[in-house]
């Protein structure tokens, strides 16, 4: 086991990692930027070094200062958390070059999964289902043939596309030629580049992801799936749960098997997540995240596994202590992200001082945060200030518990997502379970804006 780990991150995830280290008996080194001096991660760590001013480029992305901190403090490993340098293969390499263990997969795997095209190619070769897509289509006739073979509906997309320009959904073969011509004309006009390709249209997909963890000896297990379909219009996740509700048992089995097969194919080590779009019984690989994720606690709660501790253990060269046969989810877990932002004003971030901070407690409630009353939310970083996670025997019990927990939560001084998320949890669609990714933006938010009499985001 490591003697001392440097945590190359801030916020709740830095606190989370320090907790895992403490429980493993490993000393911790925190890094912080000037405005984070009073943050909980600085207080909880054994040592803490200021690595730069507020802007991330000069502090949390300041590779020389971070590596230097690791070296002068005598750390033997670096945990990158999520965001910042977590999926920076170069950083992982530099760390290794300086004799520091990077707690994550190999730089090569980080790099290949970081490039979406490479990742899809590798996954396709490993037999993982990906969204079917063509190369550039030379003519409308060729396009028609490809689309017929792919099966409708399809999406005609401009290679130079963006913002929906030069994009057309086609649900019936008879409409293909017209749609192709319109898309081409629009692409020409918008980008001066009329080249098109065709992709299978995934109808009303849900965002389902599977947690995997592997060791250096070829063992790899999955820790089930998470449903992360409640996303802001910017596609940032807002509410996550495990297991995925209202999902066919066969699909769940397929997701788990696919995730483990994909992990094996890339000889994956450490914790990672395979993100899928799920539509009906169809499953499509989107991307693989080669790091711990914000929403990992819902998995921890249903599997009773400390994923961050496992990350550290396998990085230290221990064999995975988890056996797939012994891993069964118990009950249901939900996470709500408390962000300092105004959901009814397009989730505009709200910097400021937290005049009052009170978090919930009692049975089945977990709070991960780095703030206390009086904390200042600096403008430089993401707006998440806490994660409230609950566990219940049933999904309905977990929803009731989250409603109760959010009712106990009090944040004063900045607008937050608390009330918005509480309302979402109370909606009939969420309670039924299994909403598609677009639901929040396309259905829920306009309805809410109408009810509140405010402009839609």
């Amino acid at each position: 086991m490591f003697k001392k780990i440097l945590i190359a991150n801030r916020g709740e995830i830095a606190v989370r990692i320090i907790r895992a280290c403490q429980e493993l008996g490993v000393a911790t080194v925190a890094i912080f930027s000037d405005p984070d001096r009073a943050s909980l991660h600085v207080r909880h760590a054994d040592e803490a070094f200021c690595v730069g001013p507020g802007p991330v480029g000069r502090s949390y992305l300041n590779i020389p200062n971070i590596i230097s901190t690791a070296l002068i403090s005598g750390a033997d490993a670096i945990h990158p958390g999520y965001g910042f340098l977590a999926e920076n293969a170069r950083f992982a390499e530099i760390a290794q070059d300086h004799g520091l263990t990077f707690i994550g997969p190999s730089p090569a795997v980080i790099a290949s999964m970081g490039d979406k095209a490479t990742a899809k190619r590798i996954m396709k070769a490993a037999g993982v289902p990906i969204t079917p897509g063509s190369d550039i289509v030379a003519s409308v006739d060729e396009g028609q043939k490809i689309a017929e073979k792919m099966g409708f509906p399809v999406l005609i997309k401009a290679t130079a596309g963006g913002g929906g320009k030069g994009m057309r959904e086609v649900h019936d073969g008879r409409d293909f030629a017209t749609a192709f011509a319109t898309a081409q004309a629009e692409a020409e006009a918008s980008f001066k580049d009329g080249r098109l390709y065709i992709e299978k249209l995934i109808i009303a997909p849900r965002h389902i992801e599977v947690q995997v963890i592997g060791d250096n000896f070829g063992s790899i297990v999955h820790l089930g799936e998470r449903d992360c379909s409640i996303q802001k219009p910017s596609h940032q996740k807002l509410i996550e749960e495990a297991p995925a509700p209202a999902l066919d048992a066969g699909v769940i089995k397929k997701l788990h098997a696919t995730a483990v097969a994909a992990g094996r194919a890339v000889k994956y080590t450490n914790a990672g997540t395979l993100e899928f779009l799920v539509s009906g019984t169809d499953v499509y690989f989107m991307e693989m995240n080669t790091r711990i994720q914000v929403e990992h606690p819902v998995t921890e709660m249903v599997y009773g596994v400390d994923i961050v501790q496992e990350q550290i253990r396998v990085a230290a060269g221990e064999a995975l202590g988890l056996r797939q046969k012994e891993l069964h989810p118990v009950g249901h877990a939900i996470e709500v992200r408390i962000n300092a932002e105004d959901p009814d004003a397009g989730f505009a971030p709200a910097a400021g001082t937290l005049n009052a901070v009170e978090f919930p407690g009692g049975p089945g409630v977990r709070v991960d945060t780095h703030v206390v009353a009086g904390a200042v939310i600096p403008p430089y970083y993401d707006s998440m200030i806490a994660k409230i996670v609950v566990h219940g025997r049933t999904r309905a019990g977990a929803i009731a518990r989250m409603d109760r927990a959010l009712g106990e939560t009090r944040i004063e001084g900045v607008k937050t997502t608390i009330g918005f998320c509480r309302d979402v949890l109370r909606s009939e669609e969420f309670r039924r379970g299994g909403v598609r990714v677009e639901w929040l933006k396309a259905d829920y938010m306009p309805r809410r804006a109408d009810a509140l009499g405010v402009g839609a985001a």
Partner: protein
Amino acid sequence: MTDDTIVARVRALAEAFTVSELARLTVKNSDLELELRRSRPYVGASSGAPPPDVAVVLESTNPPGGAGVPKRKPDIVTSDLVGVLRFSRPQVNEGHRLEDDRELAFVEALGIRNPVRSRGPGRVAAVFVSDGQPVEYGQPLFAIER
């Protein structure tokens, strides 16, 4: 104002300045006059270039004291890097007079010696660090009276 307060205010202002597009920033109020200048143009944090140097001039604007002339607050030379501090030879001590800009020390980080300069002549009013000490970003190293 205590030195700590000065350092904290300088840091906050220097930070705001650094990320701004400004070439020069002057702040005056009842007890502090502060001027920030870039020693070279700001090239952006993500370019991999070292952070811009910031020259700090601190001057008290308190009413003249017994001597009839304002007493200048010393410049605080801080570390831009995390590393191990080594004094340059010959080692400067408190009271040492600097004829010109000179290298006072270097911060050793990742095997590279990063010089810490006096940024002009003056008198070494204080040495806040010892040889071989780990230093963090923004840590005060020397105070120089101009």
